C-alpha cells in the first residue's frame, strides 16, 4: 500500500495499517517495528521542537553541539567521563560484594538486626555521610568511592534481603532432600540461587548510582570526574555547556546500562530468553 502525504511517500504494509489503528487504543498492541518507528518519531519530534521552538535562555542544538566540541577538545570531557565510569563501576562491584555478604549474613539470626539496621541508613543525608567518610579516608577519591558505595549499598541491600526473604521454604526442603548440610543449603539456595537477582537489582539501580555519582563528584571536585566538570562549567561558562555534558551523561548512562545487560546475559545463561538477536545467538552458541 502506498500513501502520499505532501512531499513524503510512505510505504505501509497491512500490518502497519493495523498497528496505526492500535496506536491510540487503550492497551493497544503494536509490532516491534512500529514500536521502534514510534521511538524514532519522538526523537525527531523532540529535536525539531528543540531546534525551532526553544524558549529564551535554553540553548539550541547548534550551540550545544559547538559547546560539546569545545568540551571534548579543551576540557577533556572523555577523560572525565572515563574517570567517572571507572569510579561508578568500581563502586558497583564493591557494592554487590558487600550487599551479598551482608544479605547472606542476615540468614544467621545473630547478625539479622545489624543488617536490617544497616538498610535503614538509606534515610541518611548523602552530604552528611560524605563528611563522615572524609574523616576516615586518606584521599578524596577514597571518600568519593566509599560515599558512593555506602549510598547504593543501603538500597541494594534492602532489595537483596527482600529477594532472600522471598525464597520459598520448599527450596530449602528440596536442598535438604539432596542430603545437603545447612552450609551447602545456604550456598546453593541462598547464595547461588539469588546471585542473578542481586546482580539484576544492581543493574536496575544503575541509573540511581550513575545519577548519584555526578552529585558526589560535585562534592569532591578536586578529584575531577564529569560531575565536577558540570559544576565548573555551570559557574564559569554558559548553559550550552551544561546541556552538552548532560546529554553526554545521558548517552553514556544508556550505553553503560546496555553493557551491564550484556554482561548479565553472558554471565547468567540460565536466565536467557530465546532471542532473535544474531550476535547474542552466536555468543550463546560459543558458550555452549
Amino acid at each position, binding site marked *: 500500500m502506498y500513501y502520499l502525504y505532501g512531499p513524503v511517500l510512505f510505504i505501509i504494509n497491512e500490518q502497519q495499517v493495523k498497528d496505526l489503528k492500535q496506536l491510540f487504543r487503550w492497551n493497544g498492541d503494536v509490532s516491534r517495528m512500529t514500536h521502534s518507528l514510534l521511538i524514532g518519531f519522538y526523537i525527531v519530534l523532540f529535536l525539531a521542537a528543540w531546534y525551532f521552538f526553544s524558549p529564551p535562555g535554553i540553548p539550541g542544538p547548534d550551540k550545544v553541539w559547538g559547546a560539546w566540541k569545545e568540551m571534548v577538545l579543551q576540557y577533556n570531557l572523555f577523560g572525565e567521563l572515563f574517570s567517572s565510569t571507572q569510579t561508578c563501576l568500581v563502586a558497583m562491584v564493591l557494592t554487590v560484594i558487600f550487599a551479598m555478604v551482608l544479605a547472606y549474613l542476615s540468614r544467621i539470626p545473630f547478625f539479622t538486626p545489624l543488617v536490617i539496621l544497616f538498610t535503614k541508613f538509606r534515610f541518611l543525608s548523602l552530604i552528611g555521610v560524605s563528611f563522615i567518610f572524609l574523616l576516615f579516608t586518606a584521599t578524596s577519591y577514597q571518600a568519593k568511592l566509599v560515599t558512593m558505595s555506602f549510598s547504593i549499598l543501603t538500597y541494594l541491600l534492602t532489595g537483596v534481603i527482600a529477594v532472600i526473604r522471598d525464597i520459598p521454604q520448599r527450596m530449602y526442603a528440596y536442598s*535438604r532432600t539432596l*542430603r545437603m548440610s545447612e552450609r551447602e543449603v545456604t550456598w546453593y539456595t541462598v547464595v*547461588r*540461587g539469588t546471585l542473578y537477582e542481586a546482580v539484576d537489582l544492581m543493574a536496575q539501580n544503575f541509573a540511581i548510582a550513575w545519577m548519584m555519582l555526578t552529585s558526589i563528584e560535585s562534592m569532591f571536585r578536586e578529584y575531577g570526574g564529569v560531575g565536577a566538570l558540570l559544576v565548573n562549567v555551570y559557574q564559569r561558562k554558559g548553559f550550552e555547556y551544561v546541556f552538552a555534558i548532560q546529554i553526554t551523561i545521558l548517552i553514556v548512562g544508556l550505553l553503560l546500562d546496555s553493557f551491564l545487560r550484556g554482561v548479565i546475559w553472558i554471565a547468567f545463561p540460565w536466565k536467557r530468553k530465546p532471542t532473535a538477536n544474531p550476535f547474542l545467538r552466536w555468543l550463546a552458541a560459543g558458550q*555452549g
Partner: protein
Amino acid sequence: MADYRITDTVLLDVNIDSFEYAEGRPVVTNVHQQIRNIERSGVTQGQILAILGPSGIGKSTLFELIAGLRIPEKGGVQTYDAKQQKLVPVEAGMVGMVYQTYDLFPFLTVRAQLELGARKGGWKDKEAAEKVEFYASHFQLHEHFRKYPNQLSGGQRQRLAIAQQLLCSNSLLLMDEPFSGLDPLLKQSICRLIADVAQLDELMTIIIVSHDIEPTLSIADTVWLMGKTANGSATVVETIDMMKMGLSWRPDIEDDAQFQLLVQDVCKRFVGLRDGPKPA
C-alpha cells in the same frame, strides 16, 4: 488377578503417636502403618503407596514426617536400608522428595543436576558417572544434558527432578500432589512415569500424596485414606489393598467397573474425611 507375594521385609515403618506445630494442637496423630516388599513373578516390582485425603487435612505434614524433614514428638519413621539390610530411622535426604513444582536448581545444567544427585547420594567417580548415565538414558535426558531447567518442557523437568532424587535417595520416593493442575493427558503421562519408576528396582517404594482420586487410585497398590479425628488432627482412617481387590498393575484399570465404583465411593467419603466424626 496378578500373581504376587508380600514378603516379610518391611520397607517403611511409620509409627507416629503425635506431631504438633504449636503445643497442645496435634496435627497428625496415631499413624501406625507399614509397607512391605511385594514380589511378582517375572517382574521387578516396586511398591506404590498412595496417601489420599481432602485438601488441607495434614497430608503434607505426614509427607514431611516420612521424609525426615520434621520429627514427631512421640514415635518415629524408619526406612529400609538395603546396604545394612535393616530398618533405620529416617533422616532428611534418605527419602527422595518431588514437589508438585518439580524444584531444581535453576543455575545447573541437566548434567550438573544429575551429577549433584549422584555425588550427594554417596556415589564416587566411575560409579557416579555410571549412575548418571543410567538415569539419563532411562529418563531420556541425554539430548538435554547442556540445557538449564527453564529450557526444559514440563515433562522433561518432571523426569529430571525424579531422576535427581532417585540418584540421591534410598529407593524411597515421595511425590507431593504430582497430578495437581495437570490436564487428563498429562495425568496419564505422569501415571505411566510413576509406574515405570516403580519397576526400576524391587525395593523401590513410591509414596504419592494427593487429593486427586482417580489417577492416584489407578497406579497405587496400597492406599491410606486420611481423615480428621475428633480432636481435629489427621490420621490414617482406612487402608485399601488394591492388590487384594485385583485393581493393581493394570494399564486399562480406568475401564473397570469395580475400579470406577471404588473411585465414586472414595469421592463420596471425602466430605466426611475432611470434617471428621460428628459429635455424638
